[in-house]
């Protein structure tokens, strides 16, 4: 459930923007009032999620401070903190899938957690590589992890950028205000009007006896739905973030004009691709710089991204599929195409090819194996 389409949540966010504007002369309004807002919002939304989030943030803040100041066994502490977080979130997801059960578990704990854990790990990376200089106050650490506009579905904030933002006083110019309101309206329009209407069509066609043309249509249609849905969500988050005085990174940077899959993953859900590139690819590729190693790392990253979406064979297969394609691009030296150095016809034909590969795997995002298999079976029904 996304609260950004909930009428009370939207009212609360707009009210918070108004309060921030009215208190703009108070230098700490952006940090203290946003902290109160984040906590109150979670408390009203779910007491259980509020308590879980408080404990999760405080435990990780203690680990983060320890890592900032630790003089010995830093690497062990760093890797241990990441391992504990990944193991903890993975265990909770298994509880969510009813693979394991416990009376204290509640599905609400998983709300936004897969995004929050990525931000926590980013903070640990920063503490590990920068040390004491990276130390951030608790108030900013809490705001970073629980920032309401991006809490459930990103875009994924970078620790360094967010901390730099907190040091600036609240300042929203008329141009910022206009841009923020326009992004929110655009995002709501995509989600409330376009996605809602297009979903009816998708469901209606899905009910038919699927032939190849139905399946091809459903794939393209679903791709459009996913794009509008997710980019719409990002638009709303970016708009509210801007009105609350924080810069939220873009998640979709003209992904349809990507001539290779490597470039596509820098433009589609860009903050997720950036996160994995920054935290896995960049670290390992220092030690393994050959093309074969880059291909292997691409495979590893895509499998991890697949499992990050969900623990199922469908997402695993999706990760392997994209990993293989990225590995092939690496091995065949086809990872990058510079638009300025090739003809327009070549550039657009490569973009089309990239979209074809993406479209073939897109129905996996439905998260429903029955739906995905039904559509794939239709492809062989002439």
């Amino acid at each position, binding site marked *: 459930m996304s609260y950004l*389409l909930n009428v009370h949540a939207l009212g609360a966010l707009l009210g918070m923007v108004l309060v921030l504007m009215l208190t703009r002369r108070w230098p700490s309004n952006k940090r203290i009032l946003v902290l109160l807002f984040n906590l109150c919002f979670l408390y009203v939304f779910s007491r259980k999620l509020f308590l879980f989030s408080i404990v999760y943030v405080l435990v990780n803040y203690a680990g983060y401070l320890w890592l900032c100041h630790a003089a010995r066994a830093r690497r062990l502490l760093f890797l241990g903190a990441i391992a504990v977080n990944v193991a903890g979130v993975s265990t909770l997801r298994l509880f969510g899938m009813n693979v394991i059960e416990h009376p204290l578990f509640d599905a609400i704990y998983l709300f936004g957690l897969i995004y929050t854990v990525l931000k926590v790990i980013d903070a640990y990376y920063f503490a590990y590589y920068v040390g004491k200089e990276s130390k951030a106050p608790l108030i900013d650490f809490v705001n970073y992890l629980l920032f309401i506009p991006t809490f459930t579905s990103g875009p994924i904030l970078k620790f360094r950028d967010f901390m730099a933002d907190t040091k600036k006083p609240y300042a929203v110019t008329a141009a910022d205000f206009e841009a923020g309101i326009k992004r929110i309206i655009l995002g709501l329009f995509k989600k409330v*009007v376009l996605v809602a209407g297009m979903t009816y069509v998708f469901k209606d066609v899905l009910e038919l006896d699927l032939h190849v043309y139905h399946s091809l249509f459903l794939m393209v249609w679903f791709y459009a739905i996913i794009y509008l849905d997710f980019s719409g969500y990002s638009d709303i988050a970016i708009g509210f973030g801007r009105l609350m005085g924080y810069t939220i990174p873009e998640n979709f940077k003209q992904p349809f004009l990507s001539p290779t899959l490597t470039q596509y993953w820098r433009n589609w859900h860009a903050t997720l691709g950036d996160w994995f590139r920054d935290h896995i690819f960049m670290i390992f590729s220092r030690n393994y710089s050959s093309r074969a190693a880059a291909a292997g790392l691409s495979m590893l990253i895509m499998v991890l991204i697949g499992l990050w979406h969900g623990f199922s064979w469908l997402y695993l297969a999706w990760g392997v599929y994209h990993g293989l394609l990225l590995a092939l691009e690496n091995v065949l030296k086809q990872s990058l195409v510079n638009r300025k150095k090739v003809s327009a016809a070549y550039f657009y034909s490569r973009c089309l090819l990239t979209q074809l590969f993406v479209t073939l795997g897109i129905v996996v995002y439905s998260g*429903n194996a029955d739906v995905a298999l039904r559509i794939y079976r239709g492809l062989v029904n002439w």
Partner: protein
Amino acid sequence: MAGFLRKLAEVIVYAVMLALVAACFTGNGLFIYEGF
């Protein structure tokens, strides 16, 4: 003049989008992935 007309067109487009959002908004907050 061209700038004014462009701005006017922009205002109209966003007003229409907002009106459609207001007409279709349920306020339930269902995330699309749960709809499938």
